[in-house]
Structure formats: C-alpha cells, structure tokens
C-alpha cells in the first residue's frame, strides 16, 4: 500500500508543471481558502495599526511635496498642452504583502496577499521603493505566487542609465553571496563600478527604467568576445515585505519609462522592440546610443545620485525640485502612479 502511494506521488511529481500548478491552484482556492482570507485580513489590520508617527511623517512629507510641486505640475501641463503632447500616464499598481517561502525547495518564491480579483495578472513586475524585486509567476483569485531575483528562473533585461551597456541579468552565487550577473556584454562597453543598472524594457516583461542594482565588478570571462559583470541588487527580497505590482499602462497613451519614479534620469535611447516603448529607437546590445543611426538621445551624462531619506513611489520626498525634464518624446518620469482599485471586502 505504501508503495502505491509513493508511486502515486512520483506520478504527481512527473506531471507537467502547468498541471501541478492547476492542482495547487485548486487546493488554494478550496481547502486553503480560509487561510488566505485570514491573510488578507491580517494584512489589512497591520496596515491599520501601523505606527501612527511614521504615517504622520509620511503624510507631512507628502503634503510638503505636493505643495512644492503644485506650480510645477500646472506649468508642466500647460507646456505640454502647448506642445500638443498628451499627458503622461503613470503605471497603475496593486499594493501587496509578501510572505517569503524560505527553506529548501522554495528558493526565491514569495506568496502575495492579492490575486486576480485585485487586478493581479501573471507576469506583473514586483517592485518596492528601492527597485525591482521580481515578477508574479502565478496569480490565483485571492493570492499570487511571485518569484524574486534570487529565483533560478529569474531573468531581466538590464541596461545602464546611459544606454551604452545592455545585458541579461540572472541570479548568481558569488562566494556565498547572492548577486545578479549580467551577460553577454561586449568587451568594448565596460560599465563603471557602481554604475546603476535599470530594466531596459526589452522582452515585454519589465517596463523600462526600474532600478535593479549597481555594478560591483567584472566576473570571469566567458569567452573571447564577452564578459559578465556582477550586480549588487538594490532590493533585499527578505526585507521586501510590502511590494507593489505594476500593471499595464493604457495602450492609448504614449508610454514612457519608469525611471523618473525613482528619481533617475535615463539618457540612453529606449529600445524599439519593447511593447512598452512604441516609437522608441533600436539600440543594439553594447552599442553606444549616440552611434545608433536613428538615435536622437542626448549625450550620455552620469546618472544623478538617488536622494537619501524616505521614498515615495513617484518621487523621493526629499527631492525639492524634480530632475530636469527629458527631451520630448524620448522618455521621462510619469506624473503620477495611480493605484488600481482594490476590491476588498
């Protein structure tokens, strides 16, 4: 009898992943549903009883920020209307609580307290105020499973803020320390140590401009023409207990990048093959943006330092004046990032 059960388990294990996920989805939606409902209630209560002084400080910072920006926003709108541009659309997002599934067999996965009923879809990028965490891998009605950047299946197309260096970032263990490594990268395009890497917008998974990490150093050469670099990610997955899931922007809008939300100004040209970059300019991997025939990007400038202090998604509260606007039609920070309607209770 025991052998039969073990054989049944083996059959279960050998099923294709989509069948196993469907089975797990069925269990989560039925037997375990009360626990996920409890989790949502717990997350709500935690938010309700969060430190009042901290919330007050955040509110005061936000109020000061809004007062300071009101004139600029109005001026911006006026200028844009004069130039005939549509107002920029921010990416909608869904806030969520993340529970990290530590331990053997659960590497780099986390359970999110929101699901398809809240607007969550498979493949949505998961971010925090510091930068990229990962992506939603499976969304159920009331919960979702996401992978973070330590998961072996994580991949992200990244670029430097000047657009000169492109690569695919993937998790790597460097002497017991979890980092990202990005490759391939042509030898002639060497990113500076400490250079900020952001998502490039290629691959249609992550919008352009989400901070990923900083270049630490070069890795061992993979061949004659390619070299890899280690990236120290900005977000520690275990510390990311509250995250944001980015939605899709309205297709009718001229979509820009997200770098401005983190106080970063991209100086490189956006890729043309990204769905999030209609009308962008193709940039070959490791090819300097200024040498791209159709590029209209300005000369590369060093990325501005991210301001210190508390952060709000949109712009850091300590930043009195926004970064200078990017050249028209190229890219720029969205004016607002609006939350999706959460359908709770």
């Amino acid at each position, binding site marked *: 009898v*025991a052998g039969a059960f073990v054989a049944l*388990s083996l059959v279960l294990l050998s099923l294709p992943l989509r069948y196993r996920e469907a089975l797990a989805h069925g269990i989560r939606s039925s037997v*375990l549903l009360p626990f996920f409902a409890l989790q949502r209630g717990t997350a709500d209560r935690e938010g309700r009883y969060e430190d009042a002084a901290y919330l007050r400080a955040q509110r005061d910072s936000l109020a000061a920020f809004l007062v300071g920006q009101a004139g600029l926003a109005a001026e911006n709108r006026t200028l844009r209307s004069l130039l005939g541009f549509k107002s920029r659309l921010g990416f909608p997002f869904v806030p969520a609580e993340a529970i990290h599934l530590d331990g053997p067999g*659960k590497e780099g*996965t986390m359970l999110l307290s929101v699901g398809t009923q809240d607007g969550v879809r498979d493949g949505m990028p998961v971010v925090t105020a510091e930068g990229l965490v990962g992506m939603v891998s499976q969304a159920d009605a009331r919960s979702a499973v996401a992978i973070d950047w330590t998961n072996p299946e994580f991949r992200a197309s990244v670029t430097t803020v000047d657009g000169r260096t492109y690569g695919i970032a993937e998790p790597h263990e460097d002497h017991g320390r979890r980092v990202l490594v990005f490759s391939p990268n042509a030898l002639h395009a060497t990113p500076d140590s400490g250079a900020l890497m952001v998502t490039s917008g290629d691959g249609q998974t992550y919008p352009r401009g989400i901070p990923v990490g900083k270049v630490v150093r070069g890795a061992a050469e993979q061949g004659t023409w390619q070299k890899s670099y280690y990236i120290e990610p900005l977000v520690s997955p275990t510390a990311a207990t509250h995250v944001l899931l980015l939605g899709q922007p309205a297709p009718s809008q001229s979509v820009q990048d997200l770098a401005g939300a983190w106080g970063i100004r991209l100086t490189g040209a956006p890729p043309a093959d990204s769905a999030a970059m209609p009308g962008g300019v193709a940039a070959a991997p490791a090819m300097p943006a200024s040498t791209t025939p159709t590029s209209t990007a300005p000369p590369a400038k060093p990325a501005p330092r991210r301001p210190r202090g508390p952060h709000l998604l949109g712009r850091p509260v300590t930043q009195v004046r926004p970064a200078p606007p990017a050249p028209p039609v190229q890219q720029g920070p969205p004016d607002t990032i609006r939350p999706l309607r959460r359908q709770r209770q």
Partner: protein
Amino acid sequence: VSVDARVRLLGFVVVLVVLHFALRVGLGLGTLAPDLLVVAFLVYAREVRPGTAAGMGLLLGLLEGSVTYTVGASSLVLAVLGYFAARSREVLASDGLVLMAFYLFAGKWAYDVLLWGVTTMSAHAGPAASLIVFSLPAALYAAAAGVAAVVAYRAVA
C-alpha cells in the same frame, strides 16, 4: 487501537495542520512559526501502519506543496518519510519525551534534506548550506513545538 483513539489522533493532526496554515499563511508568520504540519504528520505516522502513513503523507504533501510551490515533491517526500516513520516504531519503541524530541528533530531534518534532494532537479532547491543554516534550527524549533504539542495531547487524551 480503538476507534476513539483514532479519532483523537486524527483530531490532533487536524488541529496542528490548521494551526500550521493559520500561523504561516493566515497570520503571515512564514517560517517564524514552527513546521507543525510535519510535526503532526510524524506523530501520526508512529501510530498507524506504513501504508496509512504514506497515504496521509501524500495528502498533507499536496496541501503543503500548494502553498510552497512544491506540489509533487512534498507529497513524495512525506509519503516516503511516512513509511519510514511508521517503521521506526520497530526501532524506537519508547514513548518518552526525550526520544520523541529526537524523533521529531530527525524527522523534520530528514524532510528538509529529502525535499532539497528532490527539488534539486527543478533548480528550486537553493544552496546545500541551507540544510545546515536553515534546516537544523528549524528542526530544533519543530521538535520543541512538537514535544509541547504531544504533552498537551497526552494531557487531553
């Protein structure tokens, strides 16, 4: 074993499993809460036949795997572990608390080791060092919680 005893044992398993998911998922404690599911399963497996233990392992593995993204692997590991846990009565016949603590510690660590071994094939396993750094303290924690649960169960039963 009488029917009453079986019902009580099943009730004990249900309570611990509900507590397990309530603490880890419902209250969002994650691994801050002990692995009461494995504790309940190990205690149950010692009281039943190997086939029954393997069947329960399959069921509980489905539940655990649906939350931890390890469907199939958890079932296989718990089914195998259930078989050996049921057979362990032949070697470890005593019901003393010290022996129970050792049994729960070894069982929980064996579960983590086997799960790591099975999931290595799917590249979700993580570094082998986690079996020392993470799993050993987790096994100690589970053993302590399990002994407390067994003491409470014996007091009630």
